[in-house]
């Protein structure tokens, strides 16, 4: 299973986390506010921080073999109303991707070692989003097929 992080990798993280490989987000993931603005980009992984469900753009993602990224740091780092809002948004986003049969990438996208979580914890957090453990494991391993 693979993870994408957004900070300088510390050697101590890898053996404890259960991930086989931890990749830096730089040059791998395109960060956009909405999915449609990432259609012209060359990066295969797209992180839409707003999690707005644009079915048209997601269908084009499937055609262009692009993969949306669901970052668990959004839930880990936020709290109260913002977290509740994001839980609903990400849950709906993941469900739409599943309905469209569009594979998505799950990762922590952690900005610091404190917000990084192990595989087991990530699968449990994905469970809160309504993502089944089988789907979560698939979403964590799909990066290996892409890169």
């Amino acid at each position: 299973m693979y993870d994408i992080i957004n900070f300088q990798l510390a050697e101590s993280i890898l053996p404890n986390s259960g991930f086989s490989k931890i990749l830096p987000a730089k040059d791998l993931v395109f960060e956009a506010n909405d999915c449609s603005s990432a259609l012209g980009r060359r990066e295969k992984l797209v992180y839409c921080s707003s999690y707005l469900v644009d079915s048209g753009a997601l269908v084009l993602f499937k055609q262009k073999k692009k993969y949306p990224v669901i970052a668990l740091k959004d839930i880990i780092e936020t709290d109260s109303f913002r977290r509740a809002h994001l839980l609903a948004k990400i849950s709906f986003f993941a469900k739409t991707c599943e309905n469209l049969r569009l594979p998505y990438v799950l990762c922590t996208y952690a900005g610091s070692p404190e917000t990084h979580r192990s595989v087991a914890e990530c699968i449990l957090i994905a469970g809160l989003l309504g993502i089944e453990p089988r789907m979560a494991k698939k979403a964590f391993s799909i990066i290996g097929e892409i890169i």
Partner: protein
Amino acid sequence: MKAPDPTRRLKKRYLRARYIGAYDERKLQAELLALFGELNYGKLYLKTAKHDHAQKKIVFRCERSKAHELAGALSLIKSVRIIPERISGSIKGATTKP
């Protein structure tokens, strides 16, 4: 008084977790309450079954169907870093098994 039907008893699960940092039960309860909401927090039937201060390990009791939700929620706690380790049907299983 007639004893309640045994099938209507509370179906429990025990969740063992280790923590890093200073553990404050009040803060933990407040964060879980914020995450689950009053209604769902009540349905958790959450209770601290065992607390080993020396090893920094804690065993929570909760309702069976909510055990995985609780484990996920504990990973999101900010006041103290809690790492869920095992879910078991008995305290013995939760504490002794690796």
